[in-house]
């Protein structure tokens, strides 16, 4: 069965099904219950499953994640939310020192099976700390898995898959795409592991995730008008990275541009660039290009468009790579 849904609704549907299917699952965080979340992603869930399983917590992110750790130790499969990316910072200690390590610490006796939902990245003119891209920080932490869907179909299926995984998954939802609609094929998830070729091409590979996938597809469309054939790869899994998949695409095209919203220095673009260079030594036509946020705090809404990689800036990156 296929349905046209927004990403927001697709996630909502996945959560509803998880809560219905898995008695050990719970959803909690700030304002996720009665309000249904600031983005309405959890809309209706409390009415359906009760305030004991869909919980409006006090306003305390470290508490929310610490509670999740305790729940997981008791064999529950929590799906906590932090309201915005920037409010994951107060929870970093619980994420890094506890959630990422409890399986290790207990030699696998107490897995941390949970999905942390993080509305992520910029693009909605929100105030500061409501548009952060924290994937590199998370991907550097041993013991975490990190995934970021780019459209409703992916959002639905990757969330269901993440919930089944026995390890803690950081689920980074591109909030600027919550309201974009697309087909969700419920029966046919497709391959949910690794990266995904979102558009095939011959001359150059753009690697992106989250909201930058749609933008990169626009770039590919524009480039096609100039007879440049761009392959767009949706990285999806940011930890573990799909090394083989990324390498396969770039081996074919010989050129790569990585696009992300996070600041450039020590961003995930560096890891992917270095990986591609290691694996494709002598086979790249140009150094791997990065088109990223600048090394500045995500600016206020009016400057957001200057900060987030624009179509123009991605095109410049493509041009630099092609003209190398």
């Amino acid at each position, binding site marked *: 069965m296929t349905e046209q849904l927004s990403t927001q609704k697709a996630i909502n549907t996945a959560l509803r099904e998880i809560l219905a299917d898995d008695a050990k699952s719970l959803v909690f965080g700030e304002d996720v219950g009665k309000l249904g979340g600031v983005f309405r992603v959890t809309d209706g869930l409390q009415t359906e499953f009760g305030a004991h399983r869909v919980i*409006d917590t006090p306003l305390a992110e470290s508490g929310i994640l610490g509670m999740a750790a305790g729940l997981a130790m008791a064999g529950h499969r929590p799906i906590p939310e932090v309201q915005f990316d920037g409010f994951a910072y107060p929870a970093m200690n619980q994420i890094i020192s506890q959630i990422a390590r409890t399986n290790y610490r207990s030699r696998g006796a107490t897995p941390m099976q949970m999905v942390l939902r993080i509305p992520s990245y910029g693009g909605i003119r929100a105030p500061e700390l409501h548009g952060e891209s924290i994937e590199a920080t998370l991907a550097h932490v041993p013991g975490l898995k990190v995934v970021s869907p780019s459209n409703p179909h992916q959002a639905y299926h990757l969330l269901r898959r993440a919930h089944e995984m026995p390890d803690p998954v950081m689920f980074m939802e591109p909030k600027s795409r919550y309201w974009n609609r697309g087909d969700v094929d419920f029966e046919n998830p497709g391959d949910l592991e690794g990266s995904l070729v979102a558009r095939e091409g011959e001359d150059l590979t753009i690697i992106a995730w989250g909201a930058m996938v749609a933008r990169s597809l626009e770039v590919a469309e524009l480039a096609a008008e100039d007879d440049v054939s761009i392959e767009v790869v949706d990285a999806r899994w940011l930890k573990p990275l799909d090394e083989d998949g990324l390498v396969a695409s770039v081996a074919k095209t010989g050129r790569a541009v990585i696009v992300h919203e996070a600041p450039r220095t020590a961003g995930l673009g560096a890891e992917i660039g270095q990986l591609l260079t290691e694996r494709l030594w002598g086979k790249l036509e140009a150094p791997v290009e990065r088109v990223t946020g600048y090394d500045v705090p995500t*600016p206020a809404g009016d400057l957001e468009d200057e900060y987030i990689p624009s179509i123009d800036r991605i095109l410049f990156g493509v041009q630099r790579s092609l003209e190398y």
Partner: protein
Amino acid sequence: MPVPPSSAAQPAQLWPPQNGVTVDVETLRGLAERMLVTRVLDTEAVRWQRQGILPAFPPAIGQEAAQVGSAMALDRARDMAFITYRDHGVVVGLDSDLTDYMGSHLALWNGGFADPNKVRHSPLQAVVGATALHAMGWAYAQKLDGTGGAAIAYFGDGASSQGDVHEAMNFAAVSKSPVVFFVQNNGWSLSTPLDLQVAGGSVAARASGYSMPSMRIDGDDVGEVYAATQIALEHAREHGPVVIEAFTYRRGPHATSDDPSRYRSLEEERALGPDPIDVARQLVADEAWWAEAEQRAEQAVDAVRVQMQSPRTIDGNDMFDYVFQEKTPQLVKQQEQWREETDLD
């Protein structure tokens, strides 16, 4: 170990004051006038948001007495306020530049344009709870420097759940730093009601656990707020931290994007007791003056509107120029690239 005696020092009882509260007419007018400006600013800002001038706005409607009353109790020569996204009344109460302040709500600049050292309030803080710690550190500095200054930390009932608020209260009480923790208990943190947020229902109740005095006041009576904050500040300067819990009500939505009907009913909203603006009007008890003050408030806010819409000198360069005091070579390069790629448009 034998259990030590229950509590070494019972915290001082600061409220209600033995001789009651009297606020003179001049002061009351000053307070009321600024409450009016705050109310008009809030009402207009909601309109500006609808017109697309502001991307979003969190009205403080209903909290004018708590904010203006406390802010005007500060000594601007030496005190400092640490504010959040909903403390317009504090900004007005400190006679800070409203256009500069609105820069932040305009999404022009994180934190606004004002120099905190001049306007005596921090940039507006987006992370709930953080004001408490910064106020504590700033207050400790006043002790070291012997300025006699005190800090006031504004935060909400929701923010009180953050670990940072506990750490700040404990540090402040241990170090006897001059801080007033001013909680606006407005009954709601976004959609979350007090009973799901604050165990026991009162943030002030936590103060005695730190041997710290606390005051539970009617946050909708501007005279009471003003007097209580003065008492708290004087205590803080001499002896250390105080918690004020001002009971009030968030009469509007959490922000313009919010739909309170999803989590509270109109009946509840209507059963609130008097609007703090009406309370102030009765305190001032001079209808002619009041009418004039209303007009002046509207003019003041209108001036803000005009200034706000005249273009500001903000551009993408600012994004690079203020990251550091000493810019890094990487930022210089990125700024150059940004200029090239933008100029070519």
